[in-house]
């Protein structure tokens, strides 16, 4: 038996619960006397509700109540109460607050009935009359009104340096292009749902879909003016979120409102269509101008982004921030501006900012390489940044060069024929493209509790979440290894507002933040176990200090002579001391960390096949080399990266929330018309983890992998499409109609003049 688990491909500890259907998600707690709430959504994008006719629905036997802005129980009058931990600056949306409609699909009523079927039918009988006002949902039409967003926590204002115009004018090769990206929706498989269990005492237990149980608990307490002791939020399983659970969504508000108002347990589940009525990745227009000398030395880099936000909050994300750091270039101009539209506030979605920004930057680098007749990989290596020129700081670690080399070798990049359209296979053009990825390696303050019982079983806990990321599994590994216990004797609990404080599960910082807390709390437990081990009869450890012993294989023993030790269960039986319980808050070493730039990196190589006649694009293979610090579990880590890459395929070729400007509404609000990759769209994905040691990022040396996989993938695919066809599609997603139109236009241009 060995209890060294960190770095091993351990299968998910929550796997058996998930493959048998035992894992319960927020909308699956069936309780006696549960009432069902169904949301009625606004049919207009802007205006006022003039009348809501509910009597037809209320007449149905079994319809309990219909909440609208006219009868909703009062909630906190303070704007600040609605501001959750992940909210951008502004005035958050309040469901059923007044008669104003601010976005299409806004909840305007909640129908509560004895059964789900009845609530749904009754909701169809609610008639809402509006006084519509002209709405503005078209970013392109309003881009002239772009302005600086209000500063947002954790997002640095982009920094410019040098003189880009002068440098561009002196450059031998120049490109100046614009890329357009549509709105996208997270679409986790589990629709948002909340089940509120109401008790006679007035206490509520809220099973909620969230990436932060405590974030939702605080929100509910502030909004409904309830003491924290009366509200417990639980989210042990979350059916995907990808950022959509960073903020409490409106079903959470409505379910609590109904439960408290009706004094009974209530569930509110959103439909797939309603999953398009809150938060999305914002449509974004980017301009990139690059200038370089003939040998490929980058001289001038301009990256300007204009994105949508709502009229009530200033959402912004780091789209352009990476461009001043990724390459060595003296003259950089970056800016990010927003245009307020009549939409719901955009919402962080897997690699917010970087997903769009790196698509544009890495596409532009490919365009520059083509212009210069330089290999795209050579161009990146030529301008490789050893330090961040914005701040002059070094990287805490940066194995990007190794990523490029190992990924290129595995992919076979040296066999690439540079000329677009020159590689073929049957009726298809073959294209090879590459791109770089980068993401933050944050550590946030977080706490954890550990309880070791007399029988040697350990329970460690923190309020964090596992949205499919593997939190349960890696925390169990860290705890088991630190205390030298078998995995089966260790349990990790999460997703409960009553557990030790944790930030929301996002930003790829959970492994680093919660992992550091778990390690620290288990190290504290070690000291107490050693104290007890010293006191066992004839203890060989009587004089041993904590740095002289190893905890492994269920024993605490001397480094120098592992045969001399005490089993942990024997130590725990010592005296009548009972359980050992410890709790810690692990805070980042900010003074040390702030001296470095701390990022993860990747190099993504993609192959596409484009059917010559039909324009159908396939992605037969992708190779991704990842510099993500220490890998705690190569099995779940690989899955994280594969998942991100699948999102990159969707972003490049499929995903687009199409807005009908006439109605100001997303019209493809379902999974048949909003295309996400399906099994047949995904072929070989080869993930390499490049060795990277980093003692600065956090005590574990991990960098987080949830977001990195998507960053750069769409650019690698777009670059491969260009290499296959010679056509540069700068508007995502790259669908076959755009390719065919583009090729038809090209043929038209190439016709000899009549």
């Amino acid at each position, binding site marked *: 038996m060995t209890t060294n688990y960190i770095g091993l491909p351990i299968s998910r500890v929550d796997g058996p619960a998930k*493959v048998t259907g035992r894992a319960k*998600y927020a909308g699956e707690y069936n309780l006696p006397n549960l009432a069902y709430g169904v949301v009625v959504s606004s049919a207009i994008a802007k205006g006022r509700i003039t009348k809501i006719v509910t009597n037809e629905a209320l007449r149905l036997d*079994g319809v309990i*109540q219909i909440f609208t802005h006219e009868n*909703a129980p009062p909630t906190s009058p303070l704007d600040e109460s609605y501001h959750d931990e992940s909210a951008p600056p502004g005035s958050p949306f309040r469901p059923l607050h007044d008669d104003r409609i601010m976005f299409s699909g806004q909840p305007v009523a909640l129908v509560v009935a004895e059964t789900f079927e*009845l609530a749904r039918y009754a909701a169809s009988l609610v008639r809402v009359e509006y006084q519509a006002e002209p709405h503005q949902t078209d970013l392109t039409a309003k881009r002239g009104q772009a302005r600086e967003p209000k500063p947002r926590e954790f997002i640095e204002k982009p920094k410019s340096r040098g003189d880009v115009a002068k440098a561009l004018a002196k450059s031998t090769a120049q490109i100046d292009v614009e890329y357009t990206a549509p709105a996208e929706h997270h679409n986790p498989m589990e629709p948002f749902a909340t089940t509120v269990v109401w008790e006679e005492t007035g206490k509520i237990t809220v099973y909620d879909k969230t990436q932060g149980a405590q974030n939702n608990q605080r929100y509910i307490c502030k909004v409904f003016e309830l003491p924290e002791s009366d509200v417990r939020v639980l989210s042990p399983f979350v059916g995907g979120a990808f950022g959509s659970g960073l903020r409490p969504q409106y079903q959470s508000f409505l379910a609590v409102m109904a439960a408290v108002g009706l004094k*009974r347990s209530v569930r509110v589940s959103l439909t797939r269509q309603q999953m398009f009525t809150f938060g999305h990745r914002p449509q974004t227009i980017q301009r990139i101008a690059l200038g370089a000398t003939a040998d490929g030395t980058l001289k001038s880099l301009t990256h300007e982004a204009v994105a949508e936000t709502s009229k009530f909050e200033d959402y912004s994300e780091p789209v352009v921030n990476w461009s001043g750091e990724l390459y060595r270039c003296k003259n950089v101009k970056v800016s990010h501006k927003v245009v307020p539209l009549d939409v719901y506030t955009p919402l962080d979605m897997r690699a917010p900012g970087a997903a769009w920004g790196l698509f544009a930057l890495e596409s532009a680098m490919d365009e520059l390489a083509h212009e210069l007749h330089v290999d795209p990989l050579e161009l990146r290596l030529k301008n490789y940044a050893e330090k961040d020129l914005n701040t002059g700081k070094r990287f805490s670690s940066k194995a990007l060069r190794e990523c490029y080399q190992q990924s290129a070798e595995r992919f076979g990049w040296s066999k690439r024929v540079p000329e677009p359209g020159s590689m073929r296979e049957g009726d298809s053009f073959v294209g090879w493209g590459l791109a770089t990825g980068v993401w933050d390696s944050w550590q946030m303050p977080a706490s954890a509790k550990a309880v070791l019982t007399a029988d040697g079983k350990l329970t460690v806990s923190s309020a964090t979440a596992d949205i499919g990321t593997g939190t349960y599994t890696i925390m169990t590994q860290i705890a088991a290894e630190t205390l030298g216990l078998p995995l089966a004797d260790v349990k990790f609990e999460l997703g409960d507002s009553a557990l030790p404080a944790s930030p929301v599960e996002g930003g790829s910082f959970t492994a680093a933040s919660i992992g550091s807390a778990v390690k620290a709390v288990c190290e504290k437990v070690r000291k107490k176990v050693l104290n007890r081990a010293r006191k066992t009869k004839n203890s060989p450890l009587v004089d041993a200090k904590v740095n002289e012993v190893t905890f492994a294989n269920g024993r605490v023993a001397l480094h120098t002579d592992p045969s001399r030790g005490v089993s942990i269960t024997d130590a725990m039986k010592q005296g009548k001391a009972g359980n050992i319980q410890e709790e810690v808050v692990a805070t980042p070493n900010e003074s040390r960390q702030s001296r470095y730039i701390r990022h993860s990196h990747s190099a993504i190589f993609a192959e596409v096949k484009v059917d010559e006649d039909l324009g159908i694009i396939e992605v037969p293979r992708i190779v991704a080399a990842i510099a993500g610090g220490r890998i705690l579990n190569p099995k779940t880590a690989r899955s994280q990266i594969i998942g991100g890459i699948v999102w990159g395929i969707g972003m490049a070729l499929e995903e687009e929330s199409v807005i009908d400007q006439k109605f100001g509404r997303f019209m493809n609000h379902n*999974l048949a018309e909003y295309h996400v990759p399906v099994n047949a769209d*995904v072929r070989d994905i080869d993930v390499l983890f490049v060795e990277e040691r980093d003692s600065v990022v956090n005590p574990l040396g991990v960098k987080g992998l949830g977001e990195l996989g998507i960053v750069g993938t769409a650019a690698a695919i777009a670059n491969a499409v260009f290499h296959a066809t010679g056509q540069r599609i700068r508007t995502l997603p790259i669908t076959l109609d755009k390719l065919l139109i583009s090729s038809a236009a090209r043929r038209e241009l190439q016709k000899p003049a009549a």
Partner: protein
Amino acid sequence: SDQPMPTQKGVDVNKETQSMPTRTGITLRVNGSDKHIDVEPWTILLDALREYLDLTGTKKGCDHGQCGACTVLVDGKRINSCMTLAIMKDGTEITTIEGIGNGNGLHPVQQAFIEHDAFQCGYCTPGQICSAVGLIKEGRARTADDIRELMSGNICRCGAYPNIVAAIQQAMHAQERNANP
């Protein structure tokens, strides 16, 4: 309930109520045992399983037959349970994820899903597994490409597809070996 209710402006909630159509009694044979339930004529099989029989392993992802999260086996064939009315399945044999395993043990497909990490959030997983069991029974899939095509009715937003294909291949080949030792 004698609890005070918030008043609905302009509507007398005590006014004569309108009754809904009578519920219909049906018998579904679910995971080997007979279940008698009274359902509305328009109750879909998925809601009957989740809300009436507390079999929440079968998931609702779209309610429109677009995502496959609700896949169950009806008389051995995989179907989207959100696209069929419960009363249409009166008398049929239904297998949900809760009934896939062999007694206390895991079905080889469930085991393979764990080994290959063929899921992340787990929400599409019961549907994927039921679909895979149905697929293997159909006997049409031979290659990885066949599996990809024939599993494309089951969306996995976490993007575990390569691992799903590997897991199904393992279970499929194990079954073939057992059939032709």
